[in-house]
């Protein structure tokens, strides 16, 4: 299943992805990085398109069934 994954070491925590996410699946964890709630993510890629640091990408993720 396609899901958004964030490179937390690269993320600048600007929050653009969280603002753009149509599902409200992204939150900024303690001002450090964007945290994707995988169970809510539909893999639309809107966050990837908005991310200025190129840290959040949609990729094939193993479905953990959660």
């Amino acid at each position, binding site marked *: 299943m396609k899901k958004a994954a964030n490179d937390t070491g*690269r993320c*600048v*925590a*600007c*929050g*653009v992805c*969280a*603002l*753009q*996410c*149509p*599902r*409200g699946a992204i939150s*900024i*964890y*303690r*001002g*450090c990085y964007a945290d994707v709630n995988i169970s809510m993510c539909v893999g639309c890629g809107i966050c990837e*398109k*908005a*991310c*200025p*640091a*190129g*840290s959040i990408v949609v990729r094939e993720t193993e479905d953990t069934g959660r």
Partner: protein
Amino acid sequence: MKHTVNQKTHWYDYLWIWSIIYFALGFFNILFAWLGMIDFILPLIFAIVGGNKWFCNHMCGRGQLFWVLGRKLKCSRGKKAPKWISSKWFRYGFLAFFLTMFGTMVFQTYLVFSGAESLRKAIKLFWTFKVPWKWAYNGSTFPDWVAQFGFGFYSLMLTSTLIGLIVMVLYKERTWCSFCPMGTMTQGICKIKAKKGA
């Protein structure tokens, strides 16, 4: 169909208008440049007290302006920025450079305060190009150093916005955010706070 959480709009979604008003005010009276200190102090308070980047995430008028111009008015190519722009060394290097320039500006203010130099009614773009800005100040009840700081601070704000606009056009809308000195500083504070578990 039910509306999703993100479709709600708030008063702070319109703070991009503030960015425009700020530069307009400083064009007519340089003392208004001092209002830009809000954008310096608020994010730091959020980071130090709250341990978050709520300012960047929801209230940054500059970031919003880049979004409105870049995405809504289609002034951005929307291309991926080169990786080095959001690399740690560039982000912290730019922060160091920015703070040095801020320090230089404060020192210039001190020189006017101490009387070693006189007030210069000009702004400096990209720390290099001097632009006359005489019309924005005709004296006030404040001492000259107050106006000198205004000219210096306005220069800093305008220069950084111009850099942001250039990278907005060339790359993603909010590319500025990936190396914004305030953003780097507040994220650094948040990371320290999160590590401490505070």
